[in-house]
């Protein structure tokens, strides 16, 4: 079927599109402005306050992640049992935990760790998943079948349990949490990359590249792959949020990073025991910040998609 589709009828480019952007394009494009994309980006963002919000939020998170440890008011791991479980106050904005540690400082310092987990896990899975997905999408045949089966097999596992299993097997360390999170994200990148490449492969610039003497691999890497990047960026952003949730879930079960390291998921898990007894701040603040971070990445994914392809946004 796929090959026959190449034979499909050429629909004449007529002006029936209701969206006058296209028509305007052909008129104005002879005199494109230098700041074209900047204007466009600005316009899209100003049209969509939520995207703007998410980008600002993202920058704040990054900033906090980088600088947080230098300006937090208290040592995030120094305990002082004389002030354990104090409610939020001016001194301790988010209160203190059962060891008298400042929750605010811990939440701030945890930012770097959580972002690092998410970033490294997603980078690994993006690298592996995209490579596999590109091969499957471009060469099809046995590549597609085998890689497709790999993705299916991973997906046939209950993913969270798979991650738990991996951490349980390898031991619960930061690295293993990252590996586990990376592994369960791989099939999503395989799918996106494969789908993207399959679409791009049918574009004629691919044939043009082959005619210009590019080998198949070179065509895939230097011609098709760059055009798949936008879609992959969107996926990466969405998966970042997911990776944070996953790492937090592992911590909640008790398979996360090691104490006394501050991490949002552990803090929620530890705090969970204190809700009923009234120490709500232990759960609430890390939980909210965790939620906000994931929220930010999800919206950021939207914002990126909006910039890349306004039609596709969901």
């Amino acid at each position, binding site marked *: 079927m796929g090959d026959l589709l190449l034979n499909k009828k050429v629909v004449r480019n007529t002006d029936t599109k209701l969206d006058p952007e296209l028509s305007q394009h052909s008129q104005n494009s002879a005199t494109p402005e230098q700041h074209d994309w900047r204007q466009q980006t600005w316009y899209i963002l100003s049209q969509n306050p939520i995207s703007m919000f998410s980008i600002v939020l993202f920058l704040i998170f990054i900033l906090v992640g980088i600088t947080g440890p230098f300006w937090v008011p208290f040592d995030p791991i120094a305990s002082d049992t004389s002030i354990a479980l104090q409610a939020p106050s001016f001194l301790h904005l988010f209160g203190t935990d059962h060891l008298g540690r400042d929750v605010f400082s811990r939440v701030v310092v945890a930012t770097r760790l959580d972002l690092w987990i998410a970033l490294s896990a997603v980078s690994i899975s993006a690298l592996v998943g995209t490579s596999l997905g590109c091969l499957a999408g471009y060469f099809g045949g046995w590549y597609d079948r085998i890689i497709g089966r790999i993705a299916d097999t991973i997906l*046939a*596992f209950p993913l969270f*349990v798979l991650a738990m299993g991996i951490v349980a097997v390898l031991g619960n360390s930061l690295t293993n949490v990252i590996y586990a999170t990376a592994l369960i994200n791989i099939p999503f990148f395989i799918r996106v990359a494969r789908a993207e490449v399959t679409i791009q492969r049918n574009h004629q610039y691919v044939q043009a590249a082959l005619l210009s003497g590019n080998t198949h691999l070179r065509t895939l890497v230097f011609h098709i792959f760059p055009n798949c990047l936008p879609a992959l960026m969107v996926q990466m952003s969405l998966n970042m949020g997911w990776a944070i*949730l996953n790492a937090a879930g592992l911590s*909640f079960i008790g398979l996360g990073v090691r104490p006394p390291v501050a991490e949002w998921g552990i803090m929620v898990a530890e705090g969970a025991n204190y809700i*009923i007894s009234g120490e709500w701040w232990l759960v609430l603040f890390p*939980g909210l910040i965790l939620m906000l971070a994931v*929220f930010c990445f*999800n919206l950021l994914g*939207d914002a990126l998609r909006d910039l890349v392809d306004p039609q596709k946004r969901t």
Partner: protein
Amino acid sequence: MLAVPSLIGVIVVAFVLTRSLPGDPAVYFAGITADEESIAQIREQLGLDKSIFHQFIVYCKNLTQGNLGVSLNTGQSVASELSARFPASLELTLTGLALALMAAIPLGILAAVNPNTWIDHLCRIFVTAGASTPIFFSGLLLVFVFYYLLGWAPSPIGRLDFFYLSPPKVTGFYTIDAMINGDFETAAAAAKQLILPAITLAIFALAPIARMTRSAMLTAMGSEYVKAATANGIDRRKIIFVYALRNAMLPLLTIMGLVFSYLLGANVLVEKVFSWPGIGSFAVDALVASDFAAVQGFILVMAVMFVVLNLVIDILYTLVDPRVSIDG
């Protein structure tokens, strides 16, 4: 048929994974005061003294006879554990999914009909916030507010409150079984227990469904056939619900499948919070106790479920979309 290699893959990976779990089950189950001898005795009983390969052969042989082994942790045969617990998870997941659909599809349509307005933004923020909330966090908050503070919800102690007896098993869904049995009181009690955990799941599932509804509806609403139907003066309601929504169902079905299998996985955390006796909490306990047979059984059931789910989605697809036919 296409699922067979995946299933085999799952079986092999699950086997290797569980065998590499740390801890020696023989030691664990020999009991607190066991000595070398009794540990060795138990190791032999469990067949752990054989080579890994041999163990795998035995495992496969048992599998073909429907014998999933015995969970060391709960002492029950894995098959009976799973058959008792799986309906619990399924009932919860399906209820969660149904709640999510009931809320998300109208939201998605609302957003799609008013794209880029404050309604759209609000829907998006609402559902995204839901998807961004860690499932254990929302579960804990719901319990705290609705059970502990307000007392509206029943205690989070599983499928039935104390004093109710589980209805005779027909489907394994307590609400349905109780109604079959004519015991509406128990059915009501079971439904009450379901509400909070199902909402917890639903909150998480809102986003993918609502967003897919929105985008599929936008695509459909922007399509040529909707334009043509509008030009032909077809009623707007009919255009939205018959023309656009039915077409939007197609991508929605795919996402529903994904959401469903994700929710089944997410049960692990919800069941922990709500003491729900499903397969998720079973799996976690088994994993922590290095209880191979139970972990393997769980993974196998989930994989089979995944395959069945895909099949169901395919069938639904063919029902909704005449262009798709069942391919081998």
